[in-house]
């Protein structure tokens, strides 16, 4: 119980720090959003103060001293009110984020879980069959593919499987002619569109899990209790899975938590290539259009989801490994 309370307190403290950082970040940077807009106008001639005031009012540039801004900001965050998007005016930032979130969560989330399971299993196998082709192939292959830039894998996949072989649709989350509903036709359309981005993420991320698990496993295999289990004449598969892998998976779980949290933001490069209407693509649009309210809200959401995922993994870790519960 004490463990849980302490973790919860830390979570709240970190969340507060992240929220405050999100408040400070734009204020530490040179210029305001209005400056950027005025700079564009100034290319056509001088901008008079009245125009400037009008632009500032339109963009909702905060007034007042830093403290009252901060209080107001905290209030807005607690109501999930992030203002109105500049780019997709007059839609509110919250609506935009809520529309984009499910696409990312389902597609990227599922692939991340699949990649973790496949990669961990291959890693166990590689460590157990050390020195054979079952080790060399996944290890070298994983090293190479995990060095692939996400966007490059995406471009190649689009080019060969999409444009050349025409196996899958190359852009968006569903066809232009279909409208979102819960019919079977629409769902299969969505799955068809998810293949390529999913494949991209799988190819690029599976290697890291293989390498991590293999390394942990090799360390665990050298431990005395594994040798003891072997000496007892237990079947080698029992030793590998029930003795070694069970302990070796612990560090990988932390990585899994981080990457689950990163699901929401990490897929930015992939979503950008596929024009997949998820959170990453939205963030990309916000950045290229200098849509500061949207950018700030997305960034906060990404950080908070990382925090929560970490928190959950921490709790799970405490259950699995009692030594950490000190």
């Amino acid at each position, binding site marked *: 119980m004490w463990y849980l309370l302490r973790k919860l307190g830390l979570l709240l403290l970190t969340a507060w720090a992240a929220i405050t950082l999100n408040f400070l970040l734009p204020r530490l940077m040179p*210029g305001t959003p209005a400056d950027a807009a005025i700079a564009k106008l100034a290319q056509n001639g001088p901008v008079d103060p009245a125009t400037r005031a009008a632009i500032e009012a339109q963009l909702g540039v905060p007034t007042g001293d830093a403290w009252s801004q901060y209080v107001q900001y905290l209030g807005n965050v607690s109501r999930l009110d992030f203002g109105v998007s500049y780019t997709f005016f007059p839609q509110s930032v919250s609506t935009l984020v809520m529309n984009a979130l499910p696409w990312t969560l389902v597609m990227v989330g599922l692939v991340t879980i699949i990649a973790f399971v496949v990669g961990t299993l291959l890693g166990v196998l590689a460590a157990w069959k050390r020195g054979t082709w079952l080790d060399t192939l996944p290890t070298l292959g994983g*090293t190479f593919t995990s*060095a692939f830039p996400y966007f*490059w894998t995406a471009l190649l996949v689009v*080019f060969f499987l999409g444009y050349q072989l025409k196996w899958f649709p190359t852009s968006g989350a569903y066809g232009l002619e279909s409208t979102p509903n819960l019919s079977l036709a629409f769902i299969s359309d969505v799955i068809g569109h998810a293949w390529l981005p999913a494949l991209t993420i799988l190819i690029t991320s599976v290697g890291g899990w293989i390498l991590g698990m293999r390394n942990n496993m*090799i360390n665990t295999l050298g431990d005395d209790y594994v040798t003891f289990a072997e000496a007892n004449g237990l079947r080698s598969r029992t030793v590998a899975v029930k003795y070694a892998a069970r302990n070796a998976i612990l*560090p990988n779980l932390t990585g899994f938590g981080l990457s689950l949290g990163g699901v929401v933001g990490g897929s930015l490069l992939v979503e950008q290539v596929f024009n997949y209407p998820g959170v990453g693509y939205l963030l990309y649009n916000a950045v*290229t259009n*200098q849509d500061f309210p949207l950018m700030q809200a997305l960034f906060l959401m990404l950080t908070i989801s*990382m925090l929560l995922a970490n928190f959950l993994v921490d709790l799970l870790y405490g259950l699995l490994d009692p030594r950490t519960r000190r």
Partner: protein
Amino acid sequence: MTVAVNLPEPTGSTPPHQPPRGADTVVPEPHGPASSLRVLSRGAATIWSNKKARIGVVLLLAFVALAIFAPLIAPYGASENGFGRNEAPSGSHWFGTTAAGEDVFSQIVFGARISVLVGFIAGFLSTLIAVVVGLSWGYIRGPIADVINFVVNLVLVIPGLPLMIVIAAYLQNGGMTMIIFVVVLTGWAYGARVLRSQTQSIRGRDFITAAQFAGDGAARIVFHEILPNMTSLITGSFFGAATSAILAESGLSFLGIGDTTTVSWGSMLFWASNSNALLTGQWVLLFAPGLCIALLATSLTLINFGVDGLSNPRLREGSGR
């Protein structure tokens, strides 16, 4: 919030090679000044003896050579654009030409400069911060350590790429310096965490106690007694940080953040996808820059296989079960 390290903890099997510095310096140092040189060459031999690492070293040297001798190797300038547009590979343009009429092969060669430079500079700076923070954090106890713990965990949970592009969007004035800045800003924390846990385990060893009794200051103990024992771990985090820096730079350039007129592998792909190279079927233009990024990043990871073997003999090749 404790985020455990995803790397295998070094088992601490490296015997500390530094003898305790007693106050009575009557005992002669067993190794003279040649010691560090000998350690270096022995380390290099360990890395070289690993087959994977050897491939990595050769690959890395090839890319470094490509970057240094770019003007001699490239047949044309990187931004020379007087050629035909969207040409297929030919004798005069090995990899074809871009939509703006530039020679793709020359761009690849010059692009190596950006990636190698960013990788080394950002990798070095991240590692420097990681060493200073990680070692002090591992050595000191008390409230300051808790504060550092909090800050590092905060930096670790902030998603890297989104933070980079958000900062880049605020700063607006692109360029390599900004990219290196954001890469370092987000890249140091992971290394700091790894180095801290190793420092904590070394902190309890006898030779540290001896140094403390001899009256050495904290800074001297951390950087003269503990640091030399972590060479392999630091080397490892350097290559790790350089790898992520290279990947991050290419990602940012691909998104068109920063200076898109700088010819780098990432910006080549930015222009390629913006000029619909997918539709014109120029697969070399798509294939080559990404392959170079992947190969350069792989070479660093491969070298790290050898570096792992420095501190952890279990990970050395040929010592399997």
